[in-house]
């Protein structure tokens, strides 16, 4: 059982006691009549061959309150697309699969390109953005929930708790992010623990009180890939297509809505998914690439809100971050000790060194070109430039699913 402390400027919804899943789901079924829910699942074909997806399908088959499921399938041939359709068949909710490599959806991407829209490279950001577009095109759902497809510890309680704050009209939240601890025999989630939180606190130390930094610091797991929001928000939000997706999305939520309408919810006692390698020597892949993208996204957001970055500030930031991260390692060491978890202090220190290097790369890239962080335009702008895009997207997906 967690504590019930409210920290930061957003609301935190804790898991207190053992709330009944049946009660939660029955309430959701009632609320979803007024606010239908679409579940978006960004996935790769390889995830259907892994251990997580069978469990997710088995759990989703028991969920009754969803209005539709939109699965965006990447890196799949035509044959694999049909296999996935077969794989998803035990679920009774209406499922639409967006086949990213299919002829029709590829043509949709070409339509964006020839009309001057840079929707980025293949990845979760682009897939999620297209799924939002499809949900908006159908106009059958008012709420969009999203989670990854590599969650090994998936249970339908995760989905129910994620949806509840937004679907319940009495609570009036427009955005809800999931949080959880990530432990196996040791502590995981290095990027959040050792990069984002120390970096945000260092920036606060250097820049002083700042709304966005306070907002970001309020999230217990700002990089979690599980969130739920209203379709209005999905329409106006611009999202990055690179690893800055999570932080960039939070920046857009902060820009468009008051923090009073944003919450985070404890969705799982423990969470495990695919782990990224650190790749400390190569900044173009693994956690290093992720780190560079996240830092660029944070810098760009702050710059867009009037923060002036200079060489001196960045130099101080590196030193300040290192100190913050080292202090954080000590805190987590104590936390691991009391909970009987393994804690490799050297490995954690190596990660911090790699992250420091990545921050230095990100600062250099940012100083050379502050506009580098790619943001996919929001759907309002796309429909304004290509008025028939929703009909075309809907037709492409529906034809693929016939």
């Amino acid at each position, binding site marked *: 059982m967690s504590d019930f402390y409210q920290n930061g400027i957003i609301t935190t919804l804790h898991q207190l006691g053992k709330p009944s899943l049946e009660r939660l789901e029955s309430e959701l079924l009632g609320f979803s009549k007024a606010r239908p829910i679409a579940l978006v699942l960004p996935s790769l074909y390889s995830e259907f061959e892994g251990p997580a997806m069978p469990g997710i399908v088995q759990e989703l088959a028991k969920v009754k309150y969803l209005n539709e499921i939109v699965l965006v399938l990447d890196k799949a041939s035509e044959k694999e697309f049909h296999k996935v359709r077969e794989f998803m068949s035990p679920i009774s909710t209406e499922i639409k699969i967006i086949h990213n490599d299919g002829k029709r959806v590829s*043509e949709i991407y070409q339509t964006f390109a*020839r*009309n001057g829209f840079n929707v980025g490279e293949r990845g979760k950001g682009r897939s999620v953005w297209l799924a939002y577009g499809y949900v908006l095109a159908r106009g059958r759902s008012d709420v969009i929930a999203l989670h990854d497809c590599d969650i090994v510890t998936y249970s339908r309680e995760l989905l129910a708790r994620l949806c509840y704050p937004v679907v319940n009209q009495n609570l009036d939240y427009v955005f809800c992010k999931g949080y959880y601890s990530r432990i196996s025999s040791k502590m995981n989630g290095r990027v959040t623990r050792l990069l984002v939180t120390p970096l945000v606190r260092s920036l606060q130390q250097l820049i002083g009180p700042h709304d966005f930094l306070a907002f970001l610091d309020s999230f217990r797991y700002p990089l979690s890939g599980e969130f739920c929001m209203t379709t209005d928000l999905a329409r106006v939000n611009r999202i990055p297509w690179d690893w800055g997706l999570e932080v960039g999305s939070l920046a857009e939520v902060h820009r468009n809505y008051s923090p009073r309408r944003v919450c985070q919810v404890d969705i799982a006692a423990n969470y495990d998914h695919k782990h990224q390698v650190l790749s400390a020597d190569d900044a173009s892949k693994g956690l290093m690439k992720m780190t560079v993208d996240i830092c660029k996204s944070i810098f760009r957001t702050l710059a867009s809100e009037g923060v002036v970055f200079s060489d001196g500030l960045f130099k101080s930031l590196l030193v300040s971050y290192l100190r913050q991260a080292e202090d954080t390692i000590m805190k987590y060491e104590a936390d691991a000790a009391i909970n009987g978890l393994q804690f490799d202090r050297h490995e954690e220190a190596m990660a911090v060194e790699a992250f420091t290097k990545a921050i230095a790369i990100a600062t250099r890239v940012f100083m050379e070109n502050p506009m580098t962080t790619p943001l996919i335009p929001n759907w309002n702008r796309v429909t304004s430039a290509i*008025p028939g895009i929703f*009909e*075309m997207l809907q037709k492409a997906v529906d034809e693929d699913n016939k």
Partner: protein
Amino acid sequence: MENFINLILEPLKELFLKFKVFVPNLLAMLVILFIGILLALIIKRVLMRFLAAINFDSWSDRMGFTKIMRKGDMWNKPSSTLGLIVFWLLIVLTLMSGLNALQIPAIDQLVSQFFSYIPRFFSAAMILIVGYLFSGFISRAVLITAANSGFHYAKLLAEAVHTLLIVLILAMIMEQLQIAPSIVLAAFSIIFGGIVIALAIAFGVGGIDAARRIIEKEAMTKREDETKDEIEHI
């Protein structure tokens, strides 16, 4: 015996003479076909490059032509589709010219009928393009006006206007192409007349009370205006 041989040879001779006359025509047809196909391929390629240079695909996306193609489950680029249409039109023209070179009376008649039909075909295509753009413009104008006036069903009204205009354009096209003109005219008159009568009845019956209220209100305002000025002016 000689007569019998003549009887066999005469038709063969005649066939040979006819063949001698026909061979140059056949060769002419083959040459026309070859040059025509080659020209069609070149024109298609040049046209597609030109369309790419003027951003035709992007223009089609904005104008809604791409949407129409996708509705018909056609997923090529609009420029490729237009290139392909022009290519096959040129192939048909080439084929007709080639057949004409054969100088066979029955085919000649068919070819002249085909060529006399071409202007109708082009004017039908023009009606389709201009009509589609016009209907889109009108529908958008209706949507904006109705939405700005606070009309609750603005989108529905705009879509209804769009659909009616499309029906009108299709009827005009069918009439232009001379495809069952009398049936098209009758069907169009019945549908349009029916809609107008339905609307007249709906407004007439449904709006009796509203009309009465408006008239009574008008009359009351008039009476009030007449009785208001009680001061005697000097």
